[in-house]
Each structure stands twice: as C-alpha cells, then as structure tokens.
C-alpha cells in the first residue's frame, strides 16, 4: 500500500517536471504526450498489478514481468541503434569542421 503511494507521488512529480519542460520548450508536444501516456500506464500498473499480467496474457506472454522484460530489451536495442546513428552523424559533422579548418590553414 505504501509503495503505491510513494510511486504515485513520484509520478506526479515527474509529470510536473515534464510539463515545465514542455512549457519552456525543451521538449516537443509529441514527447509530452508520449511521457504522459507512459506515466499513466505506470500509475495504472501500480494501482492494479493484475493489469500487466492481463495484458501479457492477451499478447500471449505468461507474466506481466516477462512482458516488461521483452519490451525493455526491444526498446533498448532501438535506443542503441538511434544513438549509433546519431553518433555517426556527429562524427561526420566533426569531419566537416576539421576539413574547413584544414582549408583555412592551408600550408604552401
């Protein structure tokens, strides 16, 4: 019972934080919606623990914890992929800078 209250308070704080970030234009409207949905799901699962198992069964997975586990791995893979692509983009931008500097400092 106590853990449910603690987690709920945490979610409320997180939501307020997200909203403020949206107001100060640090995150986009789409990101705001995704976060709100995410925290809503967290609250639902916190107050009705059976829900995650029901959802898991619906999808053909035995336990809610297992579903969460599978989902997390998929999400992590996706995030790493995005990170790798982003890093490569950064590398290429660095190259552009290095190239421009080399032209500016050309030795004869």
């Amino acid at each position, binding site marked *: 019972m106590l853990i449910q209250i603690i987690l709920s308070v945490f979610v409320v704080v997180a939501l307020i934080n997200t909203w403020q970030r949206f107001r100060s234009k640090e995150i986009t409207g789409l990101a705001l919606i995704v976060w709100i949905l995410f925290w809503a799901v967290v609250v639902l699962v916190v107050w009705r623990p059976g829900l995650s198992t029901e959802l898991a069964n619906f999808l053909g997975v035995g336990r809610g914890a297992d579903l969460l586990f599978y989902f997390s791995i998929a999400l992590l893979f996706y995030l790493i992929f995005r990170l*790798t*692509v982003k890093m*490569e*983009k950064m*590398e*290429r931008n*660095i*190259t552009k800078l*290095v*190239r421009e*500097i*080399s*032209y500016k*400092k*050309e*030795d*004869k």
Partner: protein
Amino acid sequence: MSVFVVVPAFNEEKNICPVLRDIFSLYPTFKIVVVDDGSNDNTAKEALSCGAIVLRHAINRGQGASLKTGTDYAVKKGAEIIVHFDADRQFEPREIGLMIEPILKGVAEVILGSRFLSKNNNLPWTKKKIILPLARVINFLFTGCWLSDAHNGFRVLSRRAAEILDLKQDRMAHNSEIIRLIKENKLSFKEQGVTVYYHQYGQRFSGGVKIIKDLIIGNFLK
C-alpha cells in the same frame, strides 16, 4: 591538362617523401595534395619539404574523410583529373599514366585500380582466397556492382566525376561508397590492372567487419 594527385597520409613520415619524389620525377607538371590526417609524426613537414601542397586534419578523421578533403580542394583549384594514391608505397607511380589514359581519351570517367587484373602481384594467400572474395560479395550486395577487386585505393576521377561523388564515409567504407555512387550516378568506369606491393598486410578481417557496420549505418543517414 591540370592533374592533381591526392595522397591521404597518416603517420607516413618515412614513406611520404620517396612517394612524392617518384611521382614528381615522372610527372613534373602534376600537383600533389597530401592530406595529413592528424599524424603524430612529421608527415606534414616532410611532405611540405618535398614540394606537396599540404592540408592538415587537426584530428584523425579516416581515409575516406582525407580523400574528400583532398579531392574537393583539387576541384576548387581547377583540377581536370584527380588521382587517388596511397602514401605507403603500395602502388607504382609509373602506372599513374596508364590509369589516366582512358580519361584523357574520354573512354571513362572513373578508373578503378584492380590488383587482380595485373599479373605482377604477390598477395598473401589468405587475402587472395578468403578476405578479398568475401569483400567482393559484400561490395556487390551493397553497391550492385561486380568488380574484380574490392577495395583498391588507386583510382582516377575526371573533374565531373569528382564533383558528383560526394563522399560521406569517413573511414574505410568509402571504397564501397564510391562504387555505389558511380552506379547511382551512372558514371562510366573502367577497371585497370595495377601492381600492389605488400609491405604490410593491410585491411584485416576485423577491418572488414567495421566496414560492413559503417555501410549499414550509412544507409540511415542522409
């Protein structure tokens, strides 16, 4: 005819001058652009003292990046023919003339060196039998071009080809990238047998894996 030879160099202080001297003695009118890719030794100084134009990458960015730096520079300076040549004495300067010829005659716009079309080569057998055949298949999968050699740093571009081929791959995957761009832009190309001296083993199997990784990631970038 204004010919620029682009030589990417990373820590080649011992080799760079002999290479430059050989090229200059055979082709005194050519301009040589050495791109020092953030070397820790005196590569830039040596190249400068031997008469090359030197462009310096402040930090190491890879061979593909260096080639683009040099090629873009040559185009800016009015080059009509751009030669890519290695700094490690792998290639035979005497063959530059042979490589340029088809462009002068207007037969093709890109000439790619191939170590398999030349009889003079002594390749380590693991390269000949395992790494290069695999590399050729991978090249075909990524580029749609079936070539006799996979990755050969000796090539010649016409000015038009150099302007079109916008290299994005910083590291070794630029070899495959060039072939893909040739195909995409429908540039005419020709393979020419060249001599390759093996002072070092060169690209290993692990290097090949990195190239595949770079090619895949490259597909997700503009």
